[in-house]
């Protein structure tokens, strides 16, 4: 466990710091405890995965970090300030389950969108977009419309869009969940590459054990009713790993540990 139970003051170095965080939807009998007493710290440069079954609050936790939901209890800090401040500072990029691209904008103009909203000057934003579309391997597709691309390519556009304003923190909510497994493997490899190149902090929500183990330096196992953190597993995958690494014992051991932690949280009950 990386996080001691003592209530230490939030370290300035930590990108995300949550203490006794709770979120309850509704009230009375129909209240849903989406998050219950969640303690979590995410350090700079980490790749953290939230894993757990549906309803365990992993997406909710991410949305609280992004200030898309307000917590009902506890405290949370992002970059040493409130999530709202972080959002207004454009301190994070968010990648959703679906690409959420605007069909009336070309690939290039989709990637430009956040930069336009932030009022970045024209030359700089064109340069940024060209750089990050290149980084996700989409040069030559700038003039296409999203609906002319495959699902995997669309999701890569949305990643480039999130990277464009160079946030330190990348929040990815099951970004590859809707893709087929072959495309997903391919994008996982690319994502590792991207992470190493850009040195960003990544928070990644998934319900796939192999995906979490393959990508992460820290795996947060969560369980539902009430949504809580079951176990935090630190791991150190080789930096230059390829898909083949998934057949090694190291990989399988971590995967086993994750599975055990999920079982302990009764996540397999339903």
């Amino acid at each position, binding site marked *: 466990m990386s996080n001691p139970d003592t209530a230490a003051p939030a370290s300035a170095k930590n990108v995300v710091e949550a203490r006794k965080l709770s979120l309850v939807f509704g009230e009375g009998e129909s209240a849903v405890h989406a998050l219950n007493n969640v303690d979590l710290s995410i350090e700079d440069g980490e790749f953290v995965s939230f894993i757990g079954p549906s309803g365990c609050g992993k997406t909710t936790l991410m*949305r609280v970090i*992004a*200030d*898309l939901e307000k917590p009902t209890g506890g405290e949370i800090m992002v970059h040493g300030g409130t999530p709202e401040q972080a*959002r*207004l*500072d*454009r301190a*994070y*990029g*968010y990648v*959703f*389950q*679906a690409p*959420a691209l*605007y*069909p*009336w904008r070309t690939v290039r103009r989709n990637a430009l*969108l*956040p930069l*336009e*909203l*932030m009022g970045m000057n024209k030359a700089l934003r064109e340069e940024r977009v060209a750089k990050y579309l290149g980084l996700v391997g989409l040069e030559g597709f700038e003039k296409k*419309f999203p*609906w*002319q691309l495959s699902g995997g390519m669309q999701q890569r556009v949305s990643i480039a869009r999130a990277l464009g304003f160079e946030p330190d923190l990348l929040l990815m909510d099951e970004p590859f969940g809707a893709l087929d497994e072959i495309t997903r493997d391919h994008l996982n490899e690319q994502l590792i590459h991207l992470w190493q190149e850009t040195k960003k902090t990544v928070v990644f929500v998934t319900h796939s054990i192999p995906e979490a183990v393959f990508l992460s330096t820290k795996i947060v196992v969560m369980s539902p009713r009430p949504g809580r953190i079951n176990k935090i597993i630190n791991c150190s995958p080789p930096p230059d790993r390829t898909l083949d690494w998934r057949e090694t014992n190291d990989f399988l051991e971590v995967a086993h540990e994750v599975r055990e932690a999920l079982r302990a949280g009764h996540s397999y009950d339903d």
Partner: protein
Amino acid sequence: MIGVMICRDPSSALFVGLMAIALLLPVSESGNWFSQSGGNLLLILPALIVAGWSLLRSNDLTAQTKLPGLLAFVATVLAALPPLVLLENGVQPGFEGSGYWLFVLALGFFAWRAMGLLSHVIRAGRAYQLLVPTLFGLWFFYLWEVVVTGFGVPQILLPAPGVIGVAIGGHLDILWADFQQTFMKAVLAGFVMGCGSGFVVAILVDRVPFLQRGLLPLGSLVSAIPIVGIAPIMVMWFGFDWQSKAAVIVVMTFFPMLINTLAGIDEAGAMEKDLMQSYGASYFQTLISLRLPVALPFIFNALKINSTLALIGAIVAEFFGTPIVGMGFRISTEVGRMNVDMVWATIAVAALAGSTFYGVFALLERIFTFWHPSYRQQ
């Protein structure tokens, strides 16, 4: 070979059979098609040759070739001429022989076959695909002309398209003045004000949920109300000139625009809205970059609905009082004078104006919402 082809398609069979009989039966008192003056035969023979050619070429329908359809189109147009020529010179209206009507009937079956051949080709250019409705339209007006003139239907009941065309040509100045009064003044002014205010109110109401909950149910009730009924009141309030018509149009077009815009800007997905929030985008940035583009198909829907409502509103309002110019005025006075050709000429102008007005918005919609699933081209 023709036999095989005929068995497969009943309309070709009927065409061949009926045409064979029609050519032998009397067309008028002076004999059958062959005994008419030479001109007709010169028209019939090439038409039949082209028709036969197209039918021969169409026996293999697995091949996606355009030729049979094109030939059939040409043949239909060619074969449609002799009955018209005969009506112009020779036959007394109402005294055509059985051969004449059998010929038209056979031609009808052939036109149906031609449309079938034309719509058979699935992947064809837009121009080619337009041939089908074009042929249908031509046939519709042709039949109207031939039946009305051929049977000598009294003009008061239904004038032939040709007669209406003559009326249009002869009264261009009056029709143009009417068009200016009704369309350029009343319709355009009312349309712009009605749609504009509906749009603005929708944007304002969207910011106040309380108003939205109050207005939406009322708005849907309004759609069940025959709003044209306010025309007499508006004429009383705003006088006989175009202002009262514009007022009717404003009220008629306001609610469709309001409801559609409200529904449209509410259509943006939760994820897209979250995305804008994650960028810390302001209300207006979200409105401009996300919600209005999403609402565009709805807004165009309202514009299209309103484009037809506006013309209806103007014309109906003119029934309640108008200066001595305007399309509604023309229709009601010429009906009274039994100048039916002039009434139909005005209706033709109204139809043309209405479909052009609508067409403009349909075209703009295609241009601005090219990304919408209903228009996407991969």
